[in-house]
């Protein structure tokens, strides 16, 4: 019996169309657009101005707080302008636009393919390097990694959990990374273990990635304390709290962080980025992106520089199919439909999903028939039908009592609703309002 999380969950069609496609390196685009806010927390502060020459790996926006991250130039060239652009969030936000000239890297970046296994740095030095390299959670939440590596005083980490679940349908970027960069990723895991002073790490991988499970199992034999945990395929297993539950059977209390139960969770992509930052001195300037969809001619996985326009990725898979209904940045469950295809790839873009017209539309909203499918599906044990009504009627105090803030917006409720009710739409709205009220109370 395979392990999985204990509460709720759904199993959408997996559609991992690009699982067997090896990662291709996409050519450096002629122009990159780098939003200064690619992470959770304070936006970076630009440290370059129009006309400045930059090299690959040069800091172009400095972290502006503890929960913030540096941003590096992914190309060499000239800063064309700093302007507001429509990014994948659907809002206009500040971005640095760079015209590419050549491909000149900073001298201290090790560009060789050789794997450096020896760990020489101390815990503090590793955390410092990770912070400098601007590494954020690669799974999509984009939480700055150095913050997670610095547990609050009094809390200790017992076990490091690696998220190789990739529970979102369609996406295969983590799968390919584990297959192709497994060794490097495990060095990254060892670095994270050293930084957190833990001797145990579990890599959770869903059972639909048999080849990755076998490959990583073979590799971990030469590493101390790292184990692979195959998991039953269930969405949203990649959620931090669900993964902890699935791997070590502990439940993170409401409103608390995973460190409360002695766990810290990182995505496998983040572990690989940590390896590159610490062992190769390479900051976060590229990432693997899955470009896929049911009507796409040639779905695949691509290693692209941050700031590449999403339209360039779509070109790489044979252009936009005629029956396109929408293009989503991320997976079908938690991703966000793009308002513009010129939006750039950011540190958190795990996939680009092209959805055909006939399945892109939402059905007609009907009345709630009290079937309680949403309640069964909610992995946080909430009552989505109730939270939706509370948010709609602006009964914020009751919504807070019903733990609306525990919602992680996985969308299982909306996915399962037979009446097509916009459950998550309203819950997200309610979360915003309740969060505002809670913050005003602290002040």
């Amino acid at each position, binding site marked *: 019996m395979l392990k999985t999380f204990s509460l709720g969950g759904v199993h959408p069609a997996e559609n991992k169309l690009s699982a067997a496609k090896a990662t291709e390196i996409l050519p450096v685009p002629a122009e990159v657009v780098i939003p200064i806010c690619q992470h959770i927390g304070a936006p970076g502060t630009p440290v370059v101005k129009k006309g400045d020459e930059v090299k690959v790996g040069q800091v172009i926006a400095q972290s502006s707080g503890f929960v913030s991250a540096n941003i590096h130039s992914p190309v060499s060239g000239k800063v064309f302008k700093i302007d507001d652009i429509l990014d994948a969030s*659907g*809002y206009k936000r500040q971005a640095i636009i760079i015209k590419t000239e050549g491909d000149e890297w900073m001298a201290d970046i090790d560009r060789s393919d050789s794997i450096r296994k020896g760990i020489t740095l101390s815990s503090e030095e590793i955390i410092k390097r990770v912070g400098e390299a601007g590494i954020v959670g690669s799974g999509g939440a984009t939480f700055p990694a150095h913050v997670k590596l610095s547990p609050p005083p009094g809390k200790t980490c017992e076990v490091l959990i690696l998220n190789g679940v990739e529970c979102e349908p369609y996406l295969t970027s983590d799968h390919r990374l584990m297959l192709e960069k497994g060794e490097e990723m495990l060095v990254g895991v060892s670095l994270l273990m050293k930084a957190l002073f833990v001797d145990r790490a579990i890599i959770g991988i869903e059972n639909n990635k048999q080849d990755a499970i076998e490959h990583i199992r073979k590799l971990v034999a030469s590493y101390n304390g790292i184990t692979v945990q195959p998991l039953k395929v269930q969405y949203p297993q990649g959620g931090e709290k669900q993964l902890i539950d699935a791997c070590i059977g502990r439940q993170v209390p409401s409103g608390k962080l995973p460190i409360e139960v002695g766990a810290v969770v990182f995505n496998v992509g983040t572990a690989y980025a940590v390896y590159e930052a610490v062992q190769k001195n390479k900051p976060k300037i590229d990432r693997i992106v899955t470009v896929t969809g049911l009507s796409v001619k040639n779905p695949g996985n691509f290693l692209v520089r941050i700031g590449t326009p999403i339209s360039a990725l779509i070109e790489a898979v044979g252009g936009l199919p005629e029956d396109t209904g929408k293009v989503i940045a991320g997976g079908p469950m938690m991703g966000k439909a793009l308002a513009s295809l010129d939006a750039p790839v950011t540190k958190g873009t795990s996939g680009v999903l092209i959805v055909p017209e006939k399945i892109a539309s939402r059905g007609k909203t009907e009345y709630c028939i009290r079937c309680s499918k949403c309640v069964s599906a909610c992995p946080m044990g909430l009552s989505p039908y109730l939270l939706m009504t509370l948010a709609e009627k602006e009964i914020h105090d009751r919504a807070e009592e019903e733990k609306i803030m525990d919602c992680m917006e996985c969308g299982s409720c909306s996915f399962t609703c037979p009446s097509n009710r916009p459950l998550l739409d309203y819950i997200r709205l309610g979360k915003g309002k309740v969060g505002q009220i809670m913050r005003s109370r602290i002040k």
Partner: protein
Amino acid sequence: MSVVLITIVSLAGLGAIAAMILFAASKKFQVFEDPRIDEVEEVLPATNCGGCGLPGCRAFAEALVKADDISSMNCPVGGADTMNAVASILGKEAGTAIPMVAVVRCNGSCEHAPKTTNYQGAQTCAVVSALYGGETGCAFGCDGLGDCVASCKFDAMYMDDETGLPVIIEENCVACGACIDACPKNIIELRKKGPKSRRIFVSCVNKDKGAPAKKACAVACIGCSKCFKICPHDAIEMKDNHAYIDYEKCKLCRKCVPECPTKAIHEINFPPPKPKVKKEEPETTPAD
């Protein structure tokens, strides 16, 4: 016989004791309430709209009785008549509140600001604006799902099917401000009703630079400052690529109106001048 007697006596006794307890309690726990509160509440319109800034007419009546100076307090629904009636009850001086009316500062109709995306989620402006910039290319403009209309308790608003924009029915608007709180884009503003209900305002709140603003919407304020330069009364303020007419300073000379290259400045209820003025938006019904 004795059973009947005992019943009557004991019940009478119980009644007397209960009466004494109730009497004592009513004296002991009596809360004195100014009788004028009831009188004032009587003359207030009982709409409980919150336009005065207080939760309901009763709360406003209490505040009126408590306040030493009521000249700065106003019931937008009742207007001067109500406030004078209140003042005569309380023997205080009523202020002279300027009559206000809500105006919609967006002219991004389906024709002017074409849709660039197709939104299918929950049909309220609050959800759209929390999700992304909106269906049109303008992230500042009206979402067109009518949260303001739903909030109006006075039948003073409706959605125009043709333009997709809310329209304010001037005679019904009491300037309670409910629509202003309901609009997530802060498009609606309370402005001075003006002499003969005439007023001028910039019907756009786009803060983008000129080129992207114009690209998203044909009638956007592009921040060209032409109106700012021509205004003889220093009533126009340029901020964030956008002009704002201060209704306190504006003398309604209308010099700015023909200056605007995108026709973003609207004039309401003016008699048509010699050259025909084309009304962009059925902002009001031709009253007065």
